[in-house]
């Protein structure tokens, strides 16, 4: 095991990254803000994936957070950025609390398909809802921070950058602590051999539900960030391609390192920006080729989210089959 970074060191890194934002040009700043927000939701997927369940429908909580904040902001004039993040996280969390226990008992592929289906149900409902603006969605005003409003675009961008980097950074620290904890170990155990975990008195459903809740909270907060950055919300937040992109980042990152998630997210944004700049309408092409390249040449990075799970499942299944066969 690599030497673990001390939490204080990680906090220092987050502070440094925030301050570094002063030196960055505007385009990098907005890029980094989007990257941080995407990393947050991808991190949630990685947390959940450690139980062997990959969510292909995080768009559900992403949109729930975004729409929740947008509606509240427009209705009550709540524009404080931090409050909005908290509301977004709460919206995602509330939904995750309800849904998690319902789907925790489904394994791997069915779990994934269920999350996908649920997010598309939400998408379908949003598109046809005239009250929420249908497929066009609606706009929100500029965010403020602790009562201060930012008319200078440069300051506004930096404020958003700082909030997103700090929140995502702390989420990353939280995730790292989680991974190193007993609960984190139990999560890996559940992925590997959930029957044995049950025999040891561990409730696999509870472990999965808690991880699911964390992922939902992260996704809701990320939705708030996306809303603040775009100042617009629409059903696309819940669409499967949006969820797919977040899974893409998580897959690229693998499940060993939290830092990898930030790197992967930043890489995605850079690729997107540069190809949009030089060759319009090609960023998906570049991304696709990039993905193929990674699959071919970096097999460790890909699939570590899933490979252990298959091993664990097949040995336990085989063992139990033999045991049951012995009873025939």
């Amino acid at each position: 095991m690599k030497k673990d970074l001390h939490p204080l060191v990680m906090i220092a890194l987050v502070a440094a990254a925030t301050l570094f934002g002063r030196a960055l040009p505007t385009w990098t700043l907005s890029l980094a803000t989007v990257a941080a927000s995407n990393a947050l939701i991808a991190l949630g997927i990685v947390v959940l994936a450690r139980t062997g369940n990959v969510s292909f429908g995080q768009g559900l909580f992403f949109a729930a957070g975004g729409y929740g904040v947008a509606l509240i902001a427009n209705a009550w004039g709540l524009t404080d950025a931090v409050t909005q993040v908290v509301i977004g996280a709460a919206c995602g969390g509330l939904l995750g609390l309800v849904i998690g226990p319902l789907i925790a008992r489904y394994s791997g592929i069915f779990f994934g398909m269920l999350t996908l289906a649920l997010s598309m149900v939400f998408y379908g409902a949003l598109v046809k809802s005239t009250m929420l603006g249908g497929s066009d969605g609606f706009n929100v005003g500029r965010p403020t921070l602790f009562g201060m409003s930012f008319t200078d675009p440069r300051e506004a961008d930096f404020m958003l950058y700082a909030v997103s980097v700090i929140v995502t950074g702390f989420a990353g620290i939280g995730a790292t602590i989680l991974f190193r904890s007993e609960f984190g170990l139990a999560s890996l155990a559940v992925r590997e051999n959930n029957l044995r975990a049950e025999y040891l008195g561990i409730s696999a459903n509870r472990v999965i539900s808690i991880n699911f809740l964390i992922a939902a909270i992260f996704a809701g907060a990320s939705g708030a960030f996306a809303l603040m950055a775009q100042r617009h919300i629409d059903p696309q937040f819940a669409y499967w391609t949006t969820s797919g992109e977040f899974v893409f980042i998580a897959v690229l990152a693998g499940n060993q390192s939290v830092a990898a998630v930030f790197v992967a997210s930043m890489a995605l944004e850079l690729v997107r920006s540069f190809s949009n700049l030089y060759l319009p309408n090609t960023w998906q092409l570049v991304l696709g080729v990039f993905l193929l390249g990674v699959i071919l040449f970096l097999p460790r990075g890909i699939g570590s989210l899933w490979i252990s799970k298959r091993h664990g499942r097949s040995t336990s299944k085989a063992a139990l089959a033999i045991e049951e066969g012995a009873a025939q």
Partner: protein
Amino acid sequence: MNPVLSVRGLEKRFGAVVAADGLSLDIPAGQKISLIGANGAGKTTFVNMVTGYLRPDGGSILLDGADIGRRSPRSVARLGISRSFQIPQLFVELTAAENLTVAISGVSARMSLKQRAEAQGRGEKAVDLLGRFGLANVADRPVSELAGGVRKLIDIAMALVRRPKLLLLDEPTSGVSAEEKFATMDRVIHAVAPDAATIVFVEHDMEIVSRYADRVVAFYQGRILADGVPSHVLKDHEVRRYVTGGVR
């Protein structure tokens, strides 16, 4: 004194196959009892029902007087029954110590967010338990790197974490070489001794059975063929005919 485990009229069918046909058995505390029988005789089904993996079609299972027949494996584990597996069920990607830490974390209802090693000294407890089996030196090796015999021991160690009232071992020496089997079984008995647990072990190896069991129960087609001390049961005609062989 009341028996730790009391089974009455246990029944289980898989289609046309009768795995349990009115099984009744009382196991007193502290006894070391061996279940023998040919493949398909119903020993593993019995173990699966006692540990909550299978639900009996009929009959009752009482642990210290409480009915556990309808409970889940998790619930049964919490009540004091632990088992090991014929093919070790381990978390292969984790280290030996981590496997035990998971087992330890399963004991309490709440799981700690504290860092693994420090969490109430659980890391030490894991290594300590491994030491009882003579495995302290492989504590930090991933299980995937360890040999079958070692995995077997870790599997049993994990079952012991809860200090169970009743420990069920499914073929503890299968897959262990002839030279090693006594040493392995010695280690297991030695490790369990401080807790004075009741041990039920399924075995095919009659040398192990005669050496370590206080009592032997022979299964055949879901029924108990014979039940008594090893010297008696192993000489029984029907047992030799249907279980151990040696009678033509």
